[in-house]
Structure formats: structure tokens, C-alpha cells
């Protein structure tokens, strides 16, 4: 095995090259000074200028972020509450909710999307910001529940019981005992919810209305003609995601260290 190592590293390098090719390409060509997509004719910030002057694009970024944030907060709270309730529920309820939650995760996205569209239209709800937000919350909650449930299984019931016996209100027991133990699950649930919402195209495409675009639907409806401002937008996303990932990956490291110290004391 050992002697094969250079070859295996080469293979990994090729895969990474394949995965990063379009990303590097987008970043490089966002600085191109012509519309050409194949020839880099010189450095310019023209497309960034155009992007910031493009109201539709700015709106799309705004809606993407605000919807992702609200959807994450709401679905994380609802998902956490539901997951805790679920862990104490009777089997029948537990099973059926799990099955129902699987629907949007196992169904093709387009099916979930048209289901929601038919539903909103039948109720005569105007497609727009509200339906878009609602749809995002709807498809995020199952992922939050899914990521919290395994953590809840590890929680020792006796601790909460003890807290109750010692005079805690149920809310306090929840807040002081259960939540801290499942916090990693909540955070990863929130993270999944955020990315699901931030990246979503299919569902947004079907449930959005006049003037409300997120980045995905904007890109889809406007790239029939090559538009290098989309490259600038993509570069912005790459930078933002990199920043978020760095924060997300470093903060737990610091936390972990603190936690370890904490453990050492006991």
C-alpha cells in the first residue's frame, strides 16, 4: 500500500481540481474586463460595480439572507421544541411524525415544491415573501429535528427528573439541563437549516411571487444570456461562505478547549 501513496495523492489532487475548477474559474473571470468567458483580457472591477448598481441583484441577496436567517431561527426553535417533545412521546406519535418528516427529505424537491405551490394557490395566499419564507421554514424543520434526535437519545432522563425533583420548573429543567446537552445537535441543525435555505432553488422557484427573488431564482431567470455580474455575485458568495466556515470551524475548537478545561476540573 505504501508505495502506491504518490499515485493515490495524485488521484485526490485530480478530484480536488475537478471540484474547484468552476469555483476558481468564476472568481478569475469575475475580474475580467470583457464579457468573454474564455479569454481573460485584463483585470477590472467593472462587474462588481455593475453588481452593486443592479437593484434586482441586491434585492436577491437581501431576500436570500433575511429568509435564511429567519427560517433558521424559527425552524431551529420549533425543531428543538418538537424534538424534545418527540423524545418523550409515545411510540405511535414518534413513528408517524418521523415518517411524515421523511416525506420532504425523500421526495424529489420539485414534488415538495409543486405541492406547496398548489396548496398556497388553493388557499388563495398570494405568492411572495410570506410564502417563500413559510416554505423555507417548512422544509428546514425536519432537518433540524433529524439532527437533534440522536443527541436526545444520549440524554440521561434521570438528570431532568432530578432537576424537577429539586424544584426546577419544567421550563427551567429544559433550559438548564436538556438544552445544554443537545446543544451540538441544535447548532448543527441550525447550520444545516441555514445552508438549505441559503442554497435553495427548486422550492423557491415555485413558491415565490412578484419581485421576490433569492440568489438562485435570480440566477436561473436571468442567465439565458451570459452575464459576468453573476460571476461577481458568485465570488461574493464564495468569500462569504469561506468566512462563515472558518468561524464555524474555529469557534467549536475554542469551545472544545474550554470544555476540556472544564472537564479537567471535575
Amino acid at each position: 500500500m505504501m508505495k502506491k501513496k504518490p499515485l493515490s495523492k495524485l488521484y485526490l489532487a485530480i478530484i480536488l481540481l475537478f471540484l474547484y475548477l468552476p469555483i476558481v474559474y468564476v472568481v478569475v473571470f469575475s475580474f475580467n474586463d470583457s464579457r468573454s468567458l474564455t479569454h481573460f483580457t485584463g483585470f477590472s472591477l467593472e462587474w462588481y460595480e455593475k453588481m452593486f448598481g443592479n437593484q434586482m441583484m441586491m434585492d436577491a441577496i437581501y431576500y436570500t439572507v433575511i429568509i435564511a436567517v429567519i427560517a433558521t431561527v424559527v425552524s431551529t426553535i420549533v425543531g428543538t421544541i418538537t424534538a424534545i417533545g418527540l423524545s418523550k412521546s409515545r411510540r405511535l406519535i414518534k413513528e408517524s411524525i418521523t415518517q411524515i418528516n421523511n416525506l420532504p427529505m425523500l421526495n424529489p424537491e420539485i414534488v415538495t415544491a409543486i405541492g406547496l405551490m398548489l396548496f398556497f394557490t388553493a388557499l388563495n395566499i398570494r405568492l411572495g415573501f410570506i410564502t417563500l419564507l413559510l416554505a423555507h421554514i417548512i422544509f428546514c424543520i425536519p432537518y433540524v429535528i433529524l439532527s437533534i434526535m440522536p443527541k436526545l437519545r444520549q440524554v440521561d432522563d434521570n438528570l431532568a427528573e432530578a432537576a424537577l425533583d429539586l424544584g426546577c420548573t419544567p421550563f427551567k429543567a429544559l433550559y438548564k439541563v436538556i438544552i445544554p446537552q443537545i446543544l451540538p445537535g441544535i447548532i448543527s441543525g441550525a447550520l444545516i437549516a441555514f445552508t438549505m435555505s441559503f442554497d435553495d432553488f427548486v422550492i423557491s422557484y415555485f413558491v415565490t411571487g412578484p419581485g421576490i427573488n433569492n440568489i438562485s431564482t435570480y440566477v436561473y431567470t436571468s442567465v439565458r444570456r451570459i452575464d459576468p455580474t453573476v460571476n461577481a455575485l458568485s465570488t461574493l458568495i464564495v468569500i462569504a461562505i469561506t468566512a462563515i466556515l472558518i468561524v464555524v470551524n474555529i469557534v467549536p475548537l475554542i469551545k472544545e478547549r474550554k470544555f476540556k478545561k472544564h472537564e479537567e476540573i471535575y
Partner: protein
Amino acid sequence: MKSFRRMVYPYIIWAGIFIVIPMLMIVFYAFSKEGNAVMTVSFTLDNFIRFFSDSIFVNVLLRSLKLAIITTIICIVIGYPCAYFMAQLKPNSQTLMVLLVTFPMWINMLVRTYAWRGLLIESGLSPELKVYIGMIYNFLPFMILQVYTSLSKMDRDLITAAHDLGCDNKKAFLKVTLPLSVPGIISGITLVFLPAVSSFFIPRLLGGGSYVLVGNLVENYFVTTGDWNFGSAISLIMTVVILISMYFTRKFDYSKEDR
């Protein structure tokens, strides 16, 4: 503790309204005809007859299945060695590789597909080939990560044991490593095959209008033609086909484990 149970009730109502009812609405639309008001609904199989009596529609469905199957197979063929080599690395390098493979997935799929459009615009490749590249690109990381997870969980001692019992590298791989990574492959298949069958923006952006898949049919009947009944029927057919394929994949998994 039982008081916590009540915390689940609001979501039961929520899920009933926002998950179950929309699904039922698709079924309702699929089995009714245009212009049917809810009050005067009449059950009809017309939409399904229309789909299956026309070889064009069936061909599009078969083409989508073919594309999804080939994409899945290529993802396994390319992704498995990658995951395997990753699992051989030093722990720190492993973490780094996982991060590097995950990173592109965080960037909007549409944005990455759009990038391929620019990359391939002067390539002269056929629309079909471009769609394949886009599909493999988007779904490969899922496969790599799933297989990697199952490989990294594997107990190294098993391989040592196999060697001790006289297996050469190849045999140890075939008899120990590969069977133990099957669950990873299966969940990889789920994550690749499922979205590949129903995908509609990858063929749309990379194949132009020339490469129609079943997802594009659904989009077409909902967005352009406005025939929601037929569109619902197509999406129902698609869902059933996917469920059946998933059933067989899972079955394959279990039968392996039984042995």
C-alpha cells in the same frame, strides 16, 4: 417529564397542514381534470393514460432513469477510490480533505452549474455530455463523503486480521473492506440517484432546451403550459418510480447484510 410531550402537539398540526395536505393536493390534481372545482371533483385516470400511451413521455422518463443510473455509477467509480485514499491519510489530512470536499457543496448549486456553462461554452461537447458533467460534478461529493464515512468507521484490525489469515491486499479489500463499505455506497446512491432523476435546472442550464428530462416536463407543465393536473400526474409517476428504485436498493443492502 410527560409534560414535555405536549411540546410536540403544535408540530403535529403544522406537519399535517404543511406537509401532508400539499402531498394530497398533488394526488388530488393528478387524478382530476382541468377546471375541476373542489366541489364537483370527478375521479379520472386520463392524465396517467395520456402519459403512458405516448411513447414520447415514457421515453423521457426512461432517459431520466438512464441518466440518473449512469451518473450514480460514475460517481461510485470515481468517488470510491477517492474516499478509499482519503481514509488512508493521516488523521489531520483526513479532516482537511473532508473539509475540502465539503466546501464546494456550500456554494449554491445553481451558481456552480452556471460556472460550468461558461467553462463549457466553447468546448463543442454535446448537450448530453455537458449535462452528465454537471450532474457528476454536483453529486460526486455526496458519494465521496458517504463512502468515506463508512470506511473511516471501519475497524483497521479487521484488515490486519485478514492479512494474518493469509489474504493478500486485493483479497483483503474484496472480502473485508468492500463489503463493510456497502452501507456507505447505498446511502451515497440514495443521495445521488434521487436528486439526479428529478433534476431540472442542470439539464436546463447545460443542455439548453435540447435535453429534456422528466423534471423539465414537470416544470414545463407547471410553469409554461399551466396544465397542473398533467404536471401533478407526471410528478406522481416520478415519485413512484423513485420509491420503487429506492426499495430495491435498500433490499440489496439488507440481503447483503443477511449473508
